[in-house]
Each structure stands twice: as structure tokens, then as C-alpha cells.
């Protein structure tokens, strides 16, 4: 079959002939068996080409399906691996944090520089520091967490920074606490001292709320420290103010100093300056040098 003959047949098959040409074509188709055979071959050729396309496309679809399945499986695998990785990382961080806290809790009671907040501040002197709080969590902490966690973590401003930097938590002895008239140290006093010295402030607040003792002033003093360490400076300020209602002069002096730091942390600069003037005037005072230092720092920087 020549190319011309093939083109002629295709014209007919594609309906591209005039009616007259079509009639002549069909007449020849009827009368010429060789020509009819050629027409059938062109038609078979077309079907064959369609089948070649079909075979080719089926192969492609099989590949696409495999690719899509593998791609889907890969996506799932990636998601699972990422989740596992994140979980692993989370556990690692949790473990490191626990280890860090345990290490801090094991520091000797006489060490006055064990406050985690201060350690953080010494490592990072930038203005915007996120200070993590809390050591361990107990079953009874939920309500306390609600009041504290909303404040955490939060960036601290410069005054807060200065207050925290100059805060040093004192360690206490169980014998300092007088829960009753008996001067023998009891179990409750030991627990309070342990919780305080081990920086277990959330538990301490809950424990003090459940086991209030007669010396309210000292109780407020301890709670003031607890709240300060938990960065709830408003509560710290309230509790240190209440602690000042004590006849104990030494405690009054301490409570004044920590109240001044709470005021500073709360951004109450003027109130802070009023109180600190008194501390500065008392040359023999426990916090005299510290107060001068803070005042100087405040004058220079803020």
C-alpha cells in the first residue's frame, strides 16, 4: 500500500471527504476486494496503535500507582519517625531537666547561692529572658498551678531582672519555725524547712495552706520567698508585707529587704526607693551593702 493510498483511506475514515467522493469510495469498497482489504488493514492499524498506547499507559499507571503508594508510605514513615524523634527529644529534655533539678536539690543547706533563677540570670544577661520555674509536680498542685502558670514563662523587664539578680534565698532551720508553744522541733517544722531549703516552693505553699501555724508572720515570710521564687511577685509582695507585722526585729529587717525586691520586681520603683532609703541609712543592717549596690545600679542603668 502506498502512502497516497493510505492517505486516501484515512480521509474516508476521518469523514473528511465530500459526499460524492465518499460515494465513489464506498462503491469501490463494494466492488474491489483488494481495496476493501487495504481499508481493513488501515483500520486494524489504527486499532493496533490504540492498543500500543493502551499498553504504554497501563505500564505508566502501574508505575504511578507504585510511586504514589511508596510516596504515601514514605509520608507515614516520615511522620512516625518525626513523632518518635520529637518524643525522644522531649524525654531527653525532661530527663536533663529532672537531673538538673535533682542536682540543685542536693546542694548543701548552707549554700546561699542555689536559686535556679539566679543561675539562669548569671548565664544569660540579655534583657528578655524566659525564666523557667517549678521543680516537681505533685497531685495537689493543680489549683496552685492555675494561679502561677499564667505568669509562666514570661519575659522579665529590667527592674525584675535587677530584683532577681539581687535576691538570695536564705536557708532556714527547722528550729527557726515555731508551729506551737513546744520548743522541740516537730515533724511539720522539719517538712517545712526541707521543702523551703530544697526549693520545693509549690509544695511548700500547699503545705503551709493546709498546715497553718501560729506564727503567721513567719508563715507569710516563707510564702513570700516561695512566691518570689515562683515569680509570682504580687503574692510575694503581699506576703512580705504581712510578714512585717512581726515583733521580731531581725525578721522585720529581712522582710523589708525582700519586700523591697518584690516591689522592684513589680515595677514599683518609687515605693522601692522609699523602703531602700531606710535600709541604706542603717549602716549595720544585714542588707545595707546590697541595698547601696542595687540603688547605685538603679541610678546608673534605669
Amino acid at each position: 500500500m502506498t502512502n497516497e493510498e493510505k492517505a486516501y483511506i484515512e480521509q474516508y475514515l476521518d469523514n473528511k471527504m465530500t459526499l460524492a467522493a465518499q460515494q465513489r469510495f464506498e462503491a469501490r469498497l463494494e466492488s474491489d476486494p483488494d481495496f476493501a482489504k487495504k481499508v481493513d488493514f488501515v483500520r486494524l492499524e489504527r486499532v493496533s496503535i490504540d492498543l500500543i498506547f493502551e499498553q504504554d499507559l497501563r505500564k505508566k499507571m502501574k508505575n504511578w500507582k507504585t510511586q504514589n503508594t511508596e510516596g504515601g508510605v514514605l509520608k507515614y514513615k516520615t511522620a512516625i519517625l518525626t513523632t518518635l524523634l520529637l518524643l525522644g527529644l522531649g524525654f531527653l529534655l525532661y530527663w536533663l531537666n529532672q537531673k538538673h533539678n535533682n542536682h540543685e536539690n542536693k546542694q548543701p543547706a548552707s549554700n546561699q547561692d542555689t536559686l535556679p533563677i539566679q543561675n539562669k540570670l548569671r548565664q544569660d544577661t540579655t534583657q528578655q529572658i524566659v525564666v523557667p520555674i517549678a521543680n516537681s509536680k505533685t497531685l495537689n498542685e493543680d489549683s496552685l498551678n492555675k494561679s502561677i502558670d499564667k505568669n509562666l514563662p514570661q519575659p522579665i523587664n529590667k527592674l525584675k531582672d535587677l530584683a532577681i539578680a539581687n535576691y538570695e534565698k536564705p536557708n532556714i532551720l527547722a528550729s527557726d519555725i515555731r508551729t506551737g508553744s513546744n520548743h522541740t522541733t516537730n515533724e511539720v517544722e522539719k517538712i517545712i524547712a526541707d521543702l523551703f531549703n530544697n526549693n520545693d516552693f509549690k509544695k511548700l505553699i500547699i503545705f503551709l495552706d493546709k498546715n497553718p501555724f501560729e506564727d503567721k508572720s513567719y508563715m507569710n515570710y516563707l510564702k513570700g520567698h516561695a512566691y518570689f521564687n515562683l515569680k509570682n511577685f504580687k503574692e510575694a509582695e503581699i506576703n512580705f508585707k504581712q510578714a512585717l507585722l512581726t515583733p521580731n526585729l531581725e525578721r522585720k529587717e529581712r522582710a523589708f529587704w525582700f519586700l523591697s525586691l518584690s516591689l522592684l520586681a513589680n515595677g514599683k520603683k518609687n515605693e522601692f526607693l522609699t523602703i531602700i532609703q531606710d535600709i541604706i541609712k542603717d549602716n549595720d543592717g544585714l542588707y545595707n551593702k546590697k541595698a547601696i549596690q542595687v540603688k547605685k545600679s538603679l541610678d546608673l542603668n534605669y
Partner: protein
Amino acid sequence: MDLFKIWTDKALIKAINGTPTERERALKYFFDNKSLKKSIENHIIKYGGTNQDFDDVWQDTLIIFDKNIRNGKFLGESKLTTYFFGIAKIHWLKTLGKKRETVEFELKDFGNDKNEPPYEEYDPELKIQLEPILSQIGEKCKALFLGYAEYSYEELATQGTLGNADAIRKDMYRCRQRLYKLFDAKPELRTFLKSLIY
């Protein structure tokens, strides 16, 4: 990247009739069309099919769709996706008819409309008869025929894999003669053509 390419119907038709690479991209675009897939799957499940039925119909539909586009059967009276869906509906109707010979189905039961696409299936026996012939013509001839559908010899030559235009012309002629010779050896093939439109 096809992922970010927005295909128009015109571009899709051109690509299906284009180079093997363009063609593959356009057909893969349909193959990966999730919303179309979901619509067809819902239709098949609604009318008594299974997921396996859907899988078969989905692939067969793409084959018929491709054939119709290449052979100029799509007249642009609807969107390509509507056309594709129409083919799937008819194909499922016919498949179901074969499966349940005693049950009568009417197109209207399947939401048939006036603009259903032309649907032509080759006689399965004709396919069976042609398969050994196609395996005898060789891969090079198949490649030539795949390109032959829409390309001139010069265009085939510029694609670079089949040689120069003259060589392609000669090869194509030889392939066609080989094919006709194989047809000649199987005169019964011609009897299957009576039911075909062309």
C-alpha cells in the same frame, strides 16, 4: 513542576497529543486528581461496586479518555473532568451490565445526561488476537507508532531518539509493512472490524 502547574483544558488536550513527556504529565495529572477520583469512587460504590471495581474502572476510564482525546472525539462541549466522569459512568454501567446479565439497566438510573461522551470499546477478542501481533513488531516499531499518532517524521526526528527524518520514514514504512503482513496472515481479524465505527 506539575505540582504547581495549573492546567487548562486546552493545555491538557495539547499535552495529551504532544510529546511523550507532555503526554505523560497531562495523563498523570488526571491520574492523581483526587477529587475526580473521589467522585467516581462514590458513584461506583453508590451503584453497587467495590473498591476493586473502582480501581479497574478508574484505569479503564483513563485509557478510553486518552483514546478519545487523541482521536479527536472530544468536542469541547463540557469540561474535561466532566467528560472524564461521563466516560467512567458509562464504563461502569456497561461493566455492571456484563456482571449482572439478568438485570436491565438504564442510563437514566445512572444520572445520564444528553452530552454523554462517545464510548467505544474494542471487541475483547480482537484485542486478544492483536496482542501477539504487536509483540512481534518489536519495541522500535511500537515507539514509532506511539510517536506516529500526531507527529511528522521531522518532528519525531527532533525528539532525538529515533534517528533522522529519512531513517524514521523508512523505518515507519517497514514497520507498517510488517504489521500488514501479520494482518494478512490472520484473515479472521477483519471479521472483528464490522462492529467498529471506523
